[in-house]
């Protein structure tokens, strides 16, 4: 991955009439980078992608693709390929015609078109389907063709708009793998919109988590998972999601107080930034809780057991706050068992309860 920017979004705004969707948003995407725009529906991620594609006209700001200001250029002149959730294959054309449509529109020579189609078809294993109509294909095959249609255009940037959301779970995992492999082999810049955090985590070089038209955190999947920048990111990323406890900090004892319980957090990395009596939210992922008895452990009761195969999720509560604990699939706990739990403080996250920012 080079340091050169492939796509630069400069202070863009977009509104539908009076409804503002994006406001002064900026984003740099490096050459060859796999950037995932992740967020709940209505967060503006698809709008941002459509703006980059040129399918929506900006209210303000600029969009650059490499050294080219494409803000007011037509989509066809931006050197992009796009894959849609609904596949958007032309129903009246065969797969071959679908693949070649863009090239034919550009007036590419026939030999070159055939060569490119052959290459893309081989890459995506759709050689057998070339003579068929889209209506004769399954969902997975259709999405392969749609990806192929973007491939043949030799685009500088590939845009994916929730491409796997219409597929069943098994196919989704399969195509996710294919897309990742494609990126490994082609190393084109890819921008991928999804609301599925597993897709985001597995595919991305960097994830941009969005909410209400704002980028909440822009970082590697690892950083976003382990060091979420705020309460929203912490809650949105991870399944089962992070456990939260409202607490007050006791500077003298290096404790946080949750109801009547005290938790020692002296090992937290930024403990010096906390002030006495500060209201905080303590966040800990299910896999960072251990069931063991030690001087800091808290006693509680098993309230629910969810076996998930590889893991087993154990639900309990601390001072009325539900807590989930991820244990090995082979572990054996039953309803109403008394357990002692302790938190791996080094891997926890602490947020200010007012600003909701990470401390």
């Amino acid at each position, binding site marked *: 991955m080079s340091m050169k920017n492939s796509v630069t979004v400069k202070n863009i705004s977009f509104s539908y009439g009076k409804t503002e969707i994006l406001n002064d948003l900026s984003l740099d995407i490096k050459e060859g980078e796999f950037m995932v725009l992740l967020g709940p529906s209505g967060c503006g991620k698809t709008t941002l992608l459509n703006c980059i594609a040129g399918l929506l006209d900006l209210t303000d700001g600029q969009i650059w693709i490499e050294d080219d200001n494409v803000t007011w250029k037509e989509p066809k002149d931006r050197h*992009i390929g796009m894959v849609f959730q609904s596949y958007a294959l032309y129903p009246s054309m065969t797969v071959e015609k679908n693949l070649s*449509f863009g090239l034919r*529109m550009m007036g590419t020579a026939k030999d070159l078109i055939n060569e490119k189609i052959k290459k893309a078809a081989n890459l995506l294993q759709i050689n057998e389907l070339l003579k068929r109509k889209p209506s004769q294909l399954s969902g997975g095959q259709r999405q392969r063709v749609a990806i192929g249609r973007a491939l043949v255009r030799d685009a500088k940037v590939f845009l994916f708009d929730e491409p796997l959301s219409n597929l069943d779970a098994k196919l989704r995992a399969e195509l996710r793998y294919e897309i990742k492999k494609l990126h490994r082999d082609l190393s084109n810049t890819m921008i991928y919109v999804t609301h599925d955090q597993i897709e985001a985590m597995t595919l991305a070089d960097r994830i941009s988590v969005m909410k209400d038209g704002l980028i909440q955190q822009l970082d590697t999947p690892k950083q976003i998972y382990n060091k979420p920048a705020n309460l929203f990111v912490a809650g949105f990323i991870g399944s089962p999601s992070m456990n939260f406890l409202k607490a007050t900090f006791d500077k003298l004892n290096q404790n946080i107080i949750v109801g009547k319980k005290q938790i020692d957090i002296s090992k937290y990395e930024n403990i010096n930034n906390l002030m006495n009596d500060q209201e905080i939210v303590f966040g800990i992922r299910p896999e960072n809780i251990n069931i063991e008895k030690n001087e800091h452990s808290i006693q509680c009761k098993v309230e629910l057991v969810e076996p998930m195969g590889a893991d087993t999720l154990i639900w309990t509560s601390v001072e009325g706050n539900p807590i989930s604990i991820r244990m090995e699939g082979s572990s054996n706990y039953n309803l109403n068992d008394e357990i002692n739990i302790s938190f791996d403080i080094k891997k926890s996250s602490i947020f200010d309860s007012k600003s909701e920012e990470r401390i």
Partner: protein
Amino acid sequence: MSTIPKGPRPKHLTIGRIGLYCFIIMCALFFLMPLYVMIITSLKDMDEIRAANILNLPKELSFYAWPKAWSQACTGFVCEGLKPGFVNSVKITVPSVIVSVALSALNGYALAFWRFRGAYFFFGLCMFGAFIPYQVMVYPLLKIEDFLGIYSSLPGIILVHTIFGMPILTLIFRNFYASLPIDLFKAARIDGGNFIKIFFYVIIPMSTPITIVAVILQVTGIWNDFLLGLVFAGRDNQPMTVQLNNIVQVDYGVAEYNVDMSATILTSLVPLFVYFISGRWFVRGIAAGAIKG
């Protein structure tokens, strides 16, 4: 508890069903009665028509009324039958249908996909245009065509039919296109299509059902038109409907009912034929357009 459902579902002929069938058959008879009278009257000779009951079958088949209606019946002072009217109607209908359907498809496409400034206003205008009675606009249009020098001519009547057809056809096409997935249009834009290329390569190939609906509406509408043809076509281009009227409304001599009946059937054959061959497509196209408005 002893019977386990198995095999074909038992058939029930309930009172309600029987009543329904009776009603349907009565409706069919009611609407077929005039057609029956027309056909048998056209096959009788005048003596028999005068002598016998209108519902009786002809004692002796006589076919002379049909060729007479086609090529000898008098309209005013000319006695050439309906044939010239048929030719005129074809000359009026074919170009009017082609022009109005093509332009409306383009309009509907622009309205559905290229949300230009004022698109909603234009859409409202089409709605309004579709529901204004023709008669209101006959005189102003006549003055305009007179000014343009095409009043009482073939281009004149074709223009009038095109104008009157476009609002409703534009709405039909717009609604059909609005029901197509917008992603298709987006993909085509990225693939390098401009306004015209996307229309020709992507949109038109998907328009078959709705185009058939539009063609049927226009063919039957224009073929059956009387008022506009009478006012705008001029003496040399009078459509079949106007000539039929002239045959039936004779001021002198005897009224030949058998000739009138065969002339009427001949005139209505084209729309009938269109409905018979396209009924299936018509229903499908209307349904396709109605899914999403």
